[in-house]
């Protein structure tokens, strides 16, 4: 090999490299590029900057296409290994960070409904999406989505109750009190948690 006389060897060696160079990070990625980056390297690149329009206005259809790609990957990218975890987390994290406007720009308005989709469909990323919903800058929207989830039969209904009690301040507790009085929470684990919250705060009905 020292003389590099075998040309086939050169071709084979060259074939190892494109993975490094194939996916350059660009400032204005579209949905295909974001999905490609996530699938090839487990990173979301500049997806958040585009979704929050940090570098200028974007066409809404482009934003929704990127967000839908993030949802699809957060929910369905396979594997319980480090790569699968990292890729799903990067997709979910990008959507949540964009919906909250972390890092500046305009919070992505289409993020709330998409976070709900992740929260009810992904076992590994549900909590991060739920946290994102609880932190939405539009507090009314955040409370409405949390109420919908707390009164649902989804496996994260109990977690919605818990977050309402620990992370959403007085409005969260007021909402929980109302749900308690109305017996609106019906999932068994969520009822257990709500009863505990009621006991701590001395609610009765």
């Amino acid at each position, binding site marked *: 090999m*020292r*003389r*590099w006389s075998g*040309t086939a060897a*050169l*071709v084979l*060696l*060259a*074939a*190892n*490299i*494109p*993975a*490094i*160079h194939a996916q*350059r*990070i*660009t*400032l204005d990625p579209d949905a295909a590029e974001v999905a490609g*980056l996530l699938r090839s390297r487990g*990173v*979301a690149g500049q997806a*958040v*900057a585009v979704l929050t329009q940090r570098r200028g206005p974007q066409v809404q259809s482009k934003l929704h296409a990127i967000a839908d790609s993030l949802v699809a990957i957060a929910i369905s990218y396979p594997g*319980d290994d*480090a*790569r*699968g*975890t*990292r890729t*799903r987390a*990067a997709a*979910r*994290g*990008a959507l949540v*960070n964009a919906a909250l406007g*972390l*890092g*500046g720009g305009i919070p992505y308005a289409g993020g709330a409904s998409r976070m709900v989709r992740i929260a009810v469909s992904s076992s*590994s*990323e*549900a*909590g*991060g999406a*739920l*946290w*994102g919903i609880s*932190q939405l800058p539009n507090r009314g929207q955040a409370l409405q989505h949390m109420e919908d989830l707390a009164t649902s039969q989804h*496996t*994260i209904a109990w*977690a919605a109750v818990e977050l309402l009690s*620990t*992370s959403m301040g007085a409005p969260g507790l007021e909402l929980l009190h109302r749900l308690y009085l109305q017996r609106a929470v019906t999932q068994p*684990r969520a009822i*257990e*948690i709500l*009863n*505990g919250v009621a*006991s*701590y705060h001395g609610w009765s009905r």
Partner: protein
Amino acid sequence: MRRLRKDLRLSILVLATACLGGEMSSPKASEEAAPSIELVRCRGGDCLPIIIDWNPGIFGTGGSDPCEWGELRMNDSVPSEKGSSRGTQRRAGLRLSGQGAAECLPNVFVECQPFLLNFLQNTTCTLQSIPFAPEYPIVVQRWRFVGDYPDAIVTRPTSDWHWAGPVVLGGTVEVDFTMAGITNTVRAQIYVFRRDWTWATGIGGRDGLPGEVDDCFQPSANPPAGITVGMSCTDQFFTQLFTPAPQAAISDGSGYSAQSVPGSGPNSGIWYMQGVSATMQLRTQIHKEYRADGPTHPLVGDPVLVNHCTTAFNNANPRNMHAANTLCFYYAEFDSAVAVIWDHERRHMTTGLQYANASSGDLYKRWEPLVALSNLELQSKVRQEYQNTAILVANGMLTAHGTQTATFHFYRFISDSAKWLWGPSTYSR
């Protein structure tokens, strides 16, 4: 074409001799990772790999531009998830057309050495011109780093030909420059090996000591017979699994520490996770009513029990449920019920640890790559992953619930009637 082929082989030999001759920056890397080589074709600062086919005897580039240029690159390593070796790259420019360079502008590119980096390792990115042509002065306008995770950009307006500093995340280094009145941009990629963080060796669980997590049983008419919770749970945050708890208690200095990259290099000012201390220490416990240290109740109710206790203790003092069913008279089914409750909670603990030990439940793995442009933004991302992991593990623990139940008969003190009564109690296995 013959001339080009000769140039290529010469360049390959030069590169191979340089790399194999011991000039690598890391001898360990050269021993462990085979060098790889590639040829790229460049246009306007962007270079794409060319698949080389020597066999037909003709090396065709497919282009007609006499000034089209390319590079031969030799890499001593490639990135891997857990790799720790350093990477260097040797590059040689060449005319793909095989024509002389006199009538062409020089090839300008940016090179970062090393480009495969350990966390916080220094890299130096340098703008290069081959051949150096003083008749075409180059003016650097701006350096920019575009991060690949999650969103970081660092810009440095400067005329320097170098940009150096420690890095914590990979991405694209770009240089805007003008040459012969034309503005152009060239780019290079850098890669940072992630730190191999895991919390698997630090998490754990055990049976709780009496009083350790008793506050986490919320008072109610029908309290749970047992619980599995984090050691930091309280009467207010009675479901918390991690320490510190709750999620709102997580901040720089509480559960993790953050730092920003010093200096003025490609990652300067980016906040990263410096250290982690959050943990998960689970505790299983049965409700105090079932324990020997449980609360006592007046000896009123079923005359059989009253008689047993009065005989055993020679008085009619109040007794707790444990004493009523084991000391006044031994009822084996009470002990069986207690054993079933402990088994049930220990299964929750075992399952919780399994989930927390999996890649997706490993909080440190989720935290390790987080970066942000401010400490507050980083905190939000940290809390997001904390909450995600906590719910993932908690939902995993709930899968330990079986569908079977077991029913046992023993004496219980019924609060509503304020009496001891004999009867069945049913538990999930």
